[in-house]
């Protein structure tokens, strides 16, 4: 029987279930399993607990203060804008040069 038609849940189905992404037909079976099967309940609980643990180990958490520090953010913004302004200036210089050169008579080769 194909996997899709088999309603004995695979482990990854529980991940879909946890994420609210499970198909309706499968969900009905899984709801029943959750009601009567300790093993299946444990699998789902474990995935759920694992997800919580991953969330709590968020690497961004240890830098929360730095990530919202207005001075640090302003400094970063200034750095970005400084780089962007220098790109713009360079581009404008280049286009001026191009215009200037386009006004000059083209070289026809050695006279």
């Amino acid at each position, binding site marked *: 029987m194909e996997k899709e038609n088999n309603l004995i849940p695979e*482990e*990854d189905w529980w*991940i*879909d279930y946890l*994420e609210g*992404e499970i198909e309706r037909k499968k969900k009905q079976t899984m709801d029943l399993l959750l009601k009567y099967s300790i093993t299946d309940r444990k699998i789902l*609980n*474990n*995935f*759920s*607990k*694992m*997800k*919580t*643990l*991953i*969330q*709590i*180990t*968020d*690497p*961004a*958490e240890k*830098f929360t203060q*730095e*990530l*919202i520090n207005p001075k640090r*953010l302003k400094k*970063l*913004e200034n*750095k*970005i*804008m400084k*780089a*962007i*302004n220098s*790109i*713009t200036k360079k581009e404008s210089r280049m286009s001026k040069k191009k215009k200037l050169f386009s006004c000059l008579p083209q070289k026809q080769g050695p006279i």
Partner: protein
Amino acid sequence: MMNNEKDLIERVKLGHTASFSKLVRKHQKSLLRLAMRITNDLQSAEDIVQESFIKAFKKLDSFEGRSSFKSWMYRIVINTAKNKLRKHKKDHLDIAKVQISTSPIAENSLSFHVFKEVLQKEIQKLPPRQKMALILRVFEELSFKEIADIMACPYDTAKANYRHALMKLRHQFNERKELKTWEDFDQNFNVSQLTFMEN
């Protein structure tokens, strides 16, 4: 996309560079968090965000607004981070660097601290696309549609990458001795408790 943001983008495209700073101000925090989650290092995260905004500015003409500006920026940050990580393939986490606290709550704190470091290391070791799907789903809390959009892949692929990441981590949870205690952690704890534990 908010009209305001669309207007800002149009103004930048017309040459009003200063408007770009408003876009930077609006998105830098969330992009820094994302880069931080990918690299696990604040300085690298800042460099990535800076580089990404510069790339975005240079390529703004190609942004047509089919996805949100935020999704577009996420994609740039992810690609920039991937390139950077590829260049400097070094591990930012070193379990030997975990500080040993001597406070009365040290034991709890230490075991969780070690757990956290090891788990973060395992997340960093995931294949890039699985890691991205996990970060975008678990930390950024995005829908699979948004994840697929950012990762430029079909919806089902985004979901499959996420599933594989979780399955792989669960395998590691059961294999590595530092992670084996995971079932002992109380599922109902919250971040404030952990902050207390870590102080």
